[in-house]
């Protein structure tokens, strides 16, 4: 119990420690979440004040929500869910495979591959949009078109440099002995990967799960290029058009943002679970 966290802050008991912890949490909450919550409250007031936050508005209204629903926000939400579901599953799979090869295998050119992976994160997608749009409509060699279906929004996000990098760095830390003892027991490549290495990467899986979710959820350019009809729009596309529409105020945008935020927060709550340690140290030392 005593040595559960680096700082050991949680173990301190007594009234002063409690007060201090409370003050700390309050300040952190106010700084990071306060402004956003105030703005979310703004989503449920008739007009948003551009100069000040009001935590206690005169009256609440669902006008903005109704207007957002009028603009089919719920349909876009469903599309977003479909894309993030398929995309994240593929992305995690691809990342752990690639991370495993880069971290646990020594082979010629692994450094080059890593730089290539990093290079994919270096060009802004606005510039790639034009070549990408031609490519999506007619994939070279395969001659398949990904335009006009949600599949086209899922497949390209399946490989993401960030996830691969995170998996690689974390997998490097797993002691070699574990892997080797499993091999001595006659485990094959896939079993070593699946039953030894992967369970030890739970915290890293949590990280790529959370960030992968956010990344796919926030995808903007790709759905824009793939969608041929508003019926295929995802939430971020809808958000952008709500902001640019002169006829709807910021309030409707905020409602949209609120809806967009909820799933991410839920995903976050769920995936934090993988940060629980215990498994790790137990296995290493056991």
């Amino acid at each position, binding site marked *: 119990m005593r040595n559960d966290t680096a700082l050991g802050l949680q173990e301190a008991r007594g009234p002063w420690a409690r007060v201090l912890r409370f003050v700390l949490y309050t300040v952190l909450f106010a700084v990071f979440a306060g402004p956003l919550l105030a703005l979310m409250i703004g989503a449920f007031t*008739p*007009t*948003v*004040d*551009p*100069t000040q936050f009001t935590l206690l508005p005169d009256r609440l209204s669902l006008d903005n929500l109704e207007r957002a629903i*009028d*603009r*089919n926000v719920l349909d876009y939400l469903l599309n977003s869910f479909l894309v993030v579901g398929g995309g994240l599953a593929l992305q995690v799979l691809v990342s752990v495979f690639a991370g495993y090869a880069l971290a646990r295998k020594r082979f010629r050119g692994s450094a080059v591959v890593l730089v290539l992976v990093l290079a994919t994160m270096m060009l802004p997608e606005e510039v790639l*949009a*034009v*070549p990408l*749009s*031609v490519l999506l*409509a007619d994939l070279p060699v395969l001659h398949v078109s990904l335009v006009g279906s949600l599949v086209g929004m899922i497949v390209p996000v399946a490989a993401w440099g960030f996830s691969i990098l995170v998996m690689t760095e974390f997998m490097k830390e797993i002691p070699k002995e574990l892997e080797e003892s499993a091999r001595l027991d006659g485990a094959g490549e896939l079993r070593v990967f699946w039953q030894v290495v992967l369970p030890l990467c739970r915290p890293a899986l949590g990280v790529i799960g959370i960030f992968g979710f956010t990344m796919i959820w926030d995808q903007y*350019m790709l759905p*824009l*290029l793939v969608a041929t*009809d*508003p019926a295929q*729009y995802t939430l971020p*596309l809808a958000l*952008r*058009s*709500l*902001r*640019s*529409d*002169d*006829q*709807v*105020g*910021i309030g409707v945008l905020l409602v949209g943002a609120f809806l967009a935020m909820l799933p991410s927060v839920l995903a976050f709550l769920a995936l934090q679970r993988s940060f629980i340690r215990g498994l790790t140290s137990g296995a290493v030392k056991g």
Partner: protein
Amino acid sequence: MGESLCVESGHLARTDWTETLVSKQLRKQEGGRRFGALAAVLAVAAVAATGCSSGGSGQQQDESAPLEVWIRQDAGSPAAESAQALTEAFSKKSGIEAKLVAVGVTDFETKLQQRTAQKDLPDIVINDTGQLGNLVTQGLVREVDREGVAGSADIADRAWEAARGYDGKYYGVPFNSQAFALLIRKDWREEVGADVPKSWDELTELAVKFTEEDPDGNGKDDTAGMVVPGTTTRGYLTWWFSTMLWSEGGGFVEKQGDGYAPAIDGAASVEAVEKLQAMFCDSKVVQPGASTADSSTTHTVFESGKGGIYLTGPYMLPRFDGSLGKDKYEVVAAPPGAGGTATALAEGENVYMMAGSANEKGQQEFAEFAASPAGQKIGLGVDNGGIIVRLPVNTTVDGAAERGDPRWDVFQKAYDTSGRNAPALPNWSTVRQISSEGLNGVVSDCSRDVAGAMGKLAGEIDEELEKQGAKG
């Protein structure tokens, strides 16, 4: 018949094109290496040689081929519904199938670029007049024969002017127009006991009163006289300032010979910019944060009762009626300034007939229908509130009467009597961007000498005009 005509006009357009392209290439290379110039010329020659096939004017024609119609409106918005009604009415009348796609305001350019890259353009695009130069330089639009458009004479001359390219030819059929006017908080004006301003100086005085005399009576110094979108994004500051600058007798550019020359460093212009700087620096009548505010911010400032005077278009009336209340503000034409006559920025949308269509006859019919009284009335959106025609381009349609709202008359009059289109440069939006940077500098740095800064800006505009081949 459609085919031969199109091939001919296609050829004409292309020759022109090649000329501009060659001269542009050569200019670009002036400081550069010979090799580059040679390669560019060869490349241009290649483009010219493959000319007709790639341009798409040779597209097989089919007079019953369905049309794909794009409008710059957000999907699901009332405006998109009006556009849907317009295309349906067109199909019913002509028997030509037409599919409407509402492409969002923000993403219109990206989506169009995508289709351009795929060499598969929509047949019709309803887009800002300001995009004309861009569409023409990229070769995306067909030329329009003004006299050949049915009902051409009923369409306002000023609207036609906004459909005209730098070369004097027409590249679109007018569909919608608008001018800017002032929205003034009537209750505030009565509170401070002032009259409707008759000049820009009086307007500024009113703004000072709004700023200093606590017109909303809440006891706090939290009101601003003038609401200004002063960001450089999309050239907003230039866009807002145009009306003031022209009314004060200045200008960004002026006609000179066959082309244009910068005018922003002229005496009248410099004086107007000094007045602008004073609004930010001395009287401080603009809302706090104005120099980085975009229009979505300024809309909110006005509707939340933090600002008193807002120069904007008629499309904002429905929103402000809802949020602020119809009785709280009045619509007033922008007053004359030192220039003596009132001038208001005019804008609008054209129906562009895109290149490479399989049904050019249908394209023309659509454009004619959209500009006809029937099409215009649908666009006014009287029944469903989705306004895609703000001020009708067709002079036989009385928009204000159709709407039963006299405030729209103010905008109509402003357009008719003092409306002024943006200069017909090959690419006005670039000059707009450059100017907004220069103006933003002057209002952000109060110690900056206006005459000097405008001299520098004029130099930059001059350079850009040269680049566009629009120098007089």
